């Protein structure tokens, strides 16, 4: 038996990091059962969807993409990558606090670590699966390593957005257990209102203004500009994505903190 030394130098931050690490590891291990090849299953969905959209809409919409089916494929693919990451990571974050209710009733833990670690697990999976594909596409289209590096900025914005939404929905789920049903609707609206498989030009101007409230739109625009346009990264687009994602993160975190003290009565 050893005696614990009360080590106050071991900072809170380090404890968060250790917790984050083991929780991410847990969700990856449970998901893939030891085989990291399982990560490549996560590529299946966006690739299949890209093929489907191209088969159905490719011929009609290619006139908006320099009359090139290949450009349509790439535009659909980049949009799908972003929206797929969003829906899967936030859906997993949604249940994370309630799912760990038993633990939270036994040990004092920083509750925010649960949604954050779910996003973290998805980022890890993204880095192994989707990121290399996206980087290759960018390199081929832009012939510039600057663009490949710049890709990380809208992707960081995507992570921040998902973390903010993750905080918000995981807190809300503590109070409303029928939330997944409504959240499915919300993700569907976000998905339909982001120009993933259709060109933004076909949306009537009156409606287009509303689409700007979709937090995924600036991210998708920035990713496409960097990876597909062949031009140097547009700072303004990256800035828009960065600002909107920081606001969403702040919003989610503030509400999570505000509601947090009521959690333990309900889980």
């Amino acid at each position, binding site marked *: 038996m050893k005696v*614990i030394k009360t080590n106050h130098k071991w900072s809170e931050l380090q404890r968060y990091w250790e*917790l984050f*690490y*083991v929780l991410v590891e847990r969700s990856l291990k449970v998901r893939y059962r030891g085989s990291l090849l399982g990560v490549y299953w996560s590529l299946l969905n966006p690739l299949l969807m890209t093929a489907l959209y191209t088969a159905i809409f490719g011929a009609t919409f290619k006139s908006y993409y320099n009359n090139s089916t290949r450009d349509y494929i790439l535009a659909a693919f980049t949009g799908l990558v972003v929206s797929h990451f969003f829906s899967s990571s936030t859906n997993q974050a949604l249940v994370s606090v309630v799912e760990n209710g*038993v633990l939270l009733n*036994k*040990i004092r833990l920083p509750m925010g670590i649960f949604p954050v670690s779910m996003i973290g697990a998805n980022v890890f999976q993204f880095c192994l699966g989707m990121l290399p594909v996206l980087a290759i596409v960018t390199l081929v289209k832009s012939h510039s390593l600057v663009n490949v590096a710049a890709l990380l900025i809208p992707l960081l914005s995507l992570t921040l957005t998902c973390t903010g939404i993750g905080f918000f929905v995981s807190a809300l789920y503590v*109070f*409303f257990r029928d939330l997944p049903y409504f959240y499915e609707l919300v993700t569907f609206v976000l998905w339909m209102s982001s120009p993933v498989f259709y060109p933004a030009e076909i949306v009537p101007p009156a409606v287009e203004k509303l689409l700007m409230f979709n937090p995924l739109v600036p991210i998708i625009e920035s990713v496409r500009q960097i990876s597909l346009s062949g031009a140097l990264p547009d700072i303004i687009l990256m800035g828009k994505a960065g600002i909107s994602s920081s606001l969403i993160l702040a919003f989610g975190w503030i509400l999570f903190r505000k509601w947090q003290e009521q959690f333990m*009565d309900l889980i």
Partner: protein
Amino acid sequence: MREVIRLEEVSLLRRTQEELSYDFKKTLLSLVSGKYRKPLKKLVLDHINLAVQEGEKLGIIGANGSGKSTLLKVICGILQPTAGFVRVRGEIAPLIELGAGFDGKLSVMDNIVLYGVMLGFSRQEMKERARLILEFAELEDYALVPVTGLSSGMVARLGFAIATDVQPNILILDEVFAVGDESFKQKCQQRMEKFWQAHATIVLVSHDLNFIQHSCSQAIYLEKGQLKMIGKVDEVVNLYLNGVMS
């Protein structure tokens, strides 16, 4: 003697179980039809004052639902008091319903690290300790087996082994003292004896009054969230028994 736990005028309001509203649809509809009521709250702990000195063994007794476990949770920092304040000096190890935090799909080894990190240790430390923990739990051959593959007795042994591998300054016990078969129970008791002798502060909840009388010096008696009595263990147990008899 140093004071390690102090509760001053601690009150806790919690939502009552019947009032748990888990539905967005219902809440929204009741808001629209004007029938929405704010969730009712019940006073679970009522102005508790308590001071525990270093090395003291404190037993908590009272009927079911009198707030015993809730009080432990407040001391552990799992629940925040609605009013009053709690101060704890030193490392607290909670030992409440062992094994509840295990992930069945992960291996025994992974669970040891996961559980240890939750309890506040680093991964490195836990990896170093893992061998001793497995040895104590007599599960050396099961290190890589998922926890779902263990029997319930083995899971309880593992939980006990992890939670008691450390020697905290303050040990919080909720009705768990010995698990497993007879021979393992002996081991548990020996380990618990060590805690008792090691001058650790112990706060425990039990319905086993003999055990409390035998192992604690002080006791408190809770009734409906109020502290009825605090004092020498024999006097408190007598008061409790008289209350139950009449």
